[in-house]
C-alpha cells in the first residue's frame, strides 16, 4: 500500500514550515515510532509579531513502512499540504501511482538546545 506524507497543518495559523532536519533516508525501513523529520514553524510569516512565535516539531511514523521517495531536502521550506515523502507498506511494491491515504504520524513540540541564542 502506498502512503504519502504531506505537510500537515500543525497549528491553525501556519502556512508553511522549514524542514530543519531529515532523520530518514530513502530505502530505509521505519518501525513504529521512528522519527522522520523536524520542522520549524514560524508564524511571523502569517502576522507581524514583535515576539516571533516560532515552534519546533518532531514528526514520527506510527506505522511500519519503507521510505521510497523524499520530495524535499533538509532546509527546504514546504507549504501546508505539500507532498514530502512517499512510503510503502512492503519494500518492493511499485512506489508510483496514487496513494491510499496519508501516513499516520505522531507530532510533538520539541526544544532545540543547540540552536538556542544564535
Amino acid at each position, binding site marked *: 500500500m502506498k502512503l504519502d506524507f504531506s505537510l500537515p497543518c*500543525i*497549528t*491553525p*495559523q501556519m502556512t508553511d514550515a522549514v524542514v530543519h532536519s531529515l532523520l530518514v533516508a530513502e530505502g530505509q525501513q521505519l518501525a*513504529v*515510532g*521512528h*522519527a522522520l523529520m523536524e520542522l520549524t514553524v514560524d*508564524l511571523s510569516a502569517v502576522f507581524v509579531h*514583535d*515576539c*516571533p*512565535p*516560532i*515552534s*519546533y*516539531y*518532531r514528526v*514520527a511514523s*506510527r506505522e511500519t513502512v519503507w521510505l521510497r521517495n523524499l520530495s524535499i531536502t533538509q532546509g527546504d521550506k514546504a507549504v501546508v499540504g505539500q507532498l514530502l515523502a512517499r512510503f510503502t507498506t512492503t519494500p518492493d511494491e511499485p512506489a508510483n501511482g496514487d496513494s491510499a491515504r496519508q501516513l499516520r*504520524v*505522531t*507530532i*510533538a*513540540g*520539541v*526544544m532545540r*538546545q543547540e*540552536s*538556542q*541564542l*544564535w
Partner: protein
Amino acid sequence: MVTVDLPLGPLSASGFTVQRSGIRWRVPDGHRCRAGEVVAFCNIGLSAVPSQRQARRPFHEEFRDLQVTFAPTVAGTLRRHPDASLGGFLDQLHNYHFWNETDVVAALEVEDGQTSERPAWRLGFNAGLRMTDLAEDRSGLLTGWHLRARAWQGELAQPATVLSLGICEQDGIFRGESNAFLDLMETGPDALQVVHHTDRGLVPAAAVLSDQLRRNAAANTAISADLAQGFLGSSLTPTPEDWIFAGCALTALTRSPLTEEYDLLTRQGLTTAKPQAVVLSIHSEPAMVLRHRKFGYRAAWHRFRIQMAGPAVREWLQTSFDRVIRTPEDILQDLLSLRQAIAERGIDHMLVLNAMSSSGHENIVSYAPFSGALGDVVSTIRAKELNLMLHDLAAKSDIAIVDADAIAAYLGGAAHLPDGVHQSRRLQDELRAEILHILKQRGLFGQPDAVQNTSAVPQFR
C-alpha cells in the same frame, strides 16, 4: 438631570509647584461614563520653588513621561469644557498651566437623586522611565519605549506596590489593552501601584535578578567597560543594531529592579514606595542562560533579539560568555535563592506564573521517537516538569503559583493561548484577577477577603 462641574481638586507637593498640560480626552463629548472609567489625562511636572532648588528632584528619571488620569467617581454623561484642550504640544508639555484645584475641565450630567456622593475626579498617575531619553513618544497615554512603566492610584497616600518582572506574557496582564494599566487600575483595589519592567533589555530569570541584586556600582562600571572593550577590540564594525542592543543591555544590566524606590505623588502629597510583591514567570527561566567568563554574572536574552542584533553583539556574547544548561532543579534553587534575597529587602510576596503544559497541536501516541530525557526534548514535558517544580517550590517556601496552565486549559488553550505564551484579552483578564486574588488573600491590600474573586474560572488551589 443635574449637571455638576468637576474641578480638578487638590494636588500639591511640598516644596514644588505642580504644572500640567492641557487635557487630552479619551472619550467624545457626551460619552456615557462608568464610575471609575478613565476619560482623560494630561502630562504633569514639578517645579521646585526657589528655596527648594537644592533638594532631590522627584521623578528625575521619569519627568518627561509623568501623567495623571481622570476618572469620574460616579457614572454620568460627560460634558467637556471647550477650553480644556487646545491640542498639539500644549496638551503634551506640562509647562503651560499650573495645577489649580478649582479649574473645571468638564462637567458630569447625572440623574436627580442618582447618588448622594458629589461627583468628583478620581486621579491616577502614570510614569515611564525611558529605555533611552531619545525614545520619546508623547503621542498618548504612557506611550513610548520604557525600561520601566508604572501606574498608581492617586487618592490614598501609600498604595501597595506590585512589581511585574516577566517576559511579554506579563505585558498584557499588567498593562492591559490600553498599555497604560487602566484595566488593573479600574478593577484593582483603591490603593495600588503596579510597576512593570520590560524584558527587552534583559530576560528576568531568577539567576539574572539575583546577580543584579548583588552587584555594586563598581561591578556595573566593570560590566560597561568590558562590553565597550569587546566592541572596540573586535575586528567587526558594530552596526547600529549592535549599538542599540548594547545600550539596552547595559541599561538593564546596570540596574536592579528589585531594589528601586519609586516617587509617588497623590492627593496626599509626595512620598516614596518600594515593591512589596513581585510577579515572575516560569517563561522567564530558559533552559540555557549565559554566564560571563570573567565576572561570573549571568544574563539572558531572547534568541530572536540576539539574532536581530548585529555581528558585534553575537561575537561579544560568544567570546565573553559560557552557556549554562539548567535543569528544573537548578531553576528551583535559583528561585529559592532569589526569594531569600528579596525577603531580606522587605519584599514580602513572590508569585510565579506557570506555563501551559499541553498543546492541542500535538498527537503524541508514543514517546519512542524521543531519545534521552524527555524533559530535554519535548517542550510540553519540559513545561510539565517546570510546573511540578513550582509545586515543590511552593511546598518549600511561601512562593505562590499563578496557575496560568489551569486557567488557560479551562478557557481553551487553542483559542486563548494558541502558542503557549501570547494570551487573548479574556485570558489576560483572568490572570490579572487571579493575581489580585492571591495578593488579597495574602493580605497585601489589608484584611484578606473571606471569599471574593472576580474571576469566573474555578479555583484550582
